[in-house]
């Protein structure tokens, strides 16, 4: 249950996640246990976390940063990120995480759309990706550097720990309206710029309840969420949900490494584990024998999110860990898990599961005007959710029209194609649009195309998701060169490198093919669907098996 702010002064996520636990028996419980790159283990109790987040809230106040101001992080899973997120919420700022594998261009676009006033990052990331952007970001007033080596001497930046240690350790959270803005999470669109989904403090109700129902979390649990903090899962379930339940959260600073992960489960006695399909498939590739050399008996619940987990992977969990993976479904816009194979029900391997209590989901067809609900089972249509759940996004920053376009007749249209079987389970089919799902990240083809168009040799570009056994889809670009450029290996590598430098490894194309021309509509729009059909060697006249146009 939620406590609410003292003296009935509202609802604040950080109070529910941190402060309330310090009043009772949870005060000395470990909230966060960091497994640092150095091999060091760092623990923060709820009391210590309260003090540090108080300091950060005071630090912001001291900089003149207040209610509604956007505070961004560009960092991996380091303690300072968690302190920033929760301290910002205490000060009624709006916290926005950026994925540290983004290249400079996606970073610039997001800082600019989000009107960042403060950015917390590391010295290495700042020098590699942000320093060059400062002149184009006039609203970014304060960059706080976390420097492992000590004091940073980087122009136009402040030292995070210097300021934090000087800030007072007591802070009273101001009255907070549940509808006050709390979080910004970026998501990509099929056209246009990325969108910043706005979430409010009331979302904490959904964070907590879904943690209980879909992840089966209890205060005694040792919970490990492997998601990167740069994405919505890393905030909703990598910070907020588990802390509101007063448990101990394991945070591993390193990237995926199957053997090390098994050792973490063993040594940390992880009881609930929330991970992603790409990681599961990589572990499968290595085989279940490698798991069995470790004692993973502490595990009692495993869940997965990011893209549909194939039935073999669900069952592999049973073979390797003695437990199946419980797949669930949600989006940046939904703020929390909406549909799940939750603990108290039978898993249907390969399905998203059933809506959580309080969530109404349906399959719909878009009509002009309005929508039509599909009543019969096993018909593919667009997945829709009855609007109004607490963690529903409240807008796309500065994009009212795009926000309104997501709703029809009181339903939120998810953009995902699915079907519902006669037992009420939902099954993911694809996207209604050209969005790419790669290693759990939703990638907008437009953002990738725009970056590649800046290369002097490129005349036209179309980007699609190419099916891949590990990552589900890989970003593939089709390029038409300007006259005078030879489509050779050197240029291909140069273009791939160009994409990575701007966009970062996670969203840049992994594959690139030269074409003489690209298929276009009469109005001149590149037909990504047709490119995809060609890639999959489907008959070009029949792309209905791919996606349906809404």
């Amino acid at each position, binding site marked *: 249950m939620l406590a609410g702010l003292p003296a009935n002064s509202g609802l604040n996520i950080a109070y529910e996640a941190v402060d309330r636990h310090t009043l009772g028996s949870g005060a000395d419980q470990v909230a966060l246990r960091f497994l640092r790159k150095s091999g060091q283990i760092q623990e923060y109790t709820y009391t210590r976390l309260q003090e540090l987040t108080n300091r950060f809230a005071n630090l912001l106040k001291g900089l003149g940063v207040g209610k509604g101001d956007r505070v961004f992080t560009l960092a991996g899973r380091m303690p300072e990120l968690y302190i920033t997120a929760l301290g910002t919420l205490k000060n009624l700022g709006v916290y926005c995480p950026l994925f540290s594998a983004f290249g400079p261009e996606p970073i610039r676009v997001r800082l600019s759309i989000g009107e960042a006033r403060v950015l917390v990052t590391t010295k290495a990331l700042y020098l590699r990706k942000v320093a060059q952007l400062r002149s184009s970001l006039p609203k970014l007033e304060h960059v706080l550097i976390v420097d492992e080596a000590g004091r940073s001497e980087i122009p136009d930046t402040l030292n995070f720990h210097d300021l934090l240690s000087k800030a007072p350790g007591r802070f009273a959270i101001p009255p907070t309206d549940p509808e006050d803005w709390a979080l910004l999470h970026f998501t990509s669109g099929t056209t246009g710029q990325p969108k910043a989904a706005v979430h409010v403090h009331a979302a904490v109700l959904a964070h907590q309840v879904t943690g209980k129902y879909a992840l089966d979390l209890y205060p005694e649990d040792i919970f490990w969420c492997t998601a990167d903090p740069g994405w919505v899962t890393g905030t909703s379930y990598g910070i907020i949900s588990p802390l509101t339940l007063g448990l101990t959260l394991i945070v591993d600073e390193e990237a995926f490494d*199957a053997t090390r992960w098994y050792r973490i489960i063993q040594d940390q006695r992880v009881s609930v584990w929330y991970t992603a399909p*790409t990681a599961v498939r*990589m572990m499968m590739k*290595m085989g279940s024998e490698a798991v069995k050399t470790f004692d993973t008996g502490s595990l009692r619940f495993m869940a997965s999110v990011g893209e549909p987990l194939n039935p073999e992977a669900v069952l592999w969990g049973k073979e390797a860990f003695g437990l199946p993976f419980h797949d669930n479904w949600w989006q940046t816009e939904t703020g929390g898990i909406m549909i799940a194979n939750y603990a108290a029900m039978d898993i249907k391997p390969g399905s998203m599961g059933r809506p959580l209590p309080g969530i109404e989901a349906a399959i719909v067809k878009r009509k002009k005007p309005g929508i039509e609900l599909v009543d019969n089972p096993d018909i593919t249509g667009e997945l829709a959710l009855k609007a109004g759940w607490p963690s529903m996004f409240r807008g796309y920053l500065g994009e009212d029209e795009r926000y309104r376009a997501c709703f029809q007749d009181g339903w939120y249209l998810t953009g995902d194609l699915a079907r519902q079987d006669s037992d009420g389970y939902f099954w993911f089919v694809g996207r209604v649009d050209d969005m790419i799902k790669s290693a759990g990240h939703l990638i907008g083809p437009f953002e990738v195309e725009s970056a590649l168009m800046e290369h002097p040799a490129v005349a036209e570009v179309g980007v699609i998701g190419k099916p891949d056994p590990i990552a589900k889809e890989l970003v593939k670009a089709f390029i038409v060169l300007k006259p005078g450029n030879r489509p050779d290996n050197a240029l291909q590598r140069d273009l*791939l*490198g*160009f994409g*990575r*430098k701007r966009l*970062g490894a996670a969203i840049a194309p992994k594959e690139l093919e030269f074409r003489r021309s690209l298929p276009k509509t009469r109005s001149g729009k590149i037909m990504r669907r047709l490119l995809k059909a060609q890639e999959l060697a489907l008959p070009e006249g029949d792309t209905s098996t791919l996606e349906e146009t809404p």
Partner: protein
Amino acid sequence: MNKEELVRSILTALAEAAPGTDADTIDPAISFRDQIEIDSIDFLNFVLLLEKKLNLKVPEIDYPKLSSLDGCISFFETHHKLAD
């Protein structure tokens, strides 16, 4: 294959798996991930390319040993007969 050729093969595979990588700037002691743009999918491709170039199968359990240049060198030195 001598050590120099081995290093060249490793860096070529790295540049193919992660185009845009400047091989000259690689610090051999630091993991690739901490100094260049490379994600887990690129790393997988890097290992597969190395296997092809060196005509050697790397057991999946040993993949993490290949996460830095020094790691690669010592792994292949013990598993690959180098010429003097």
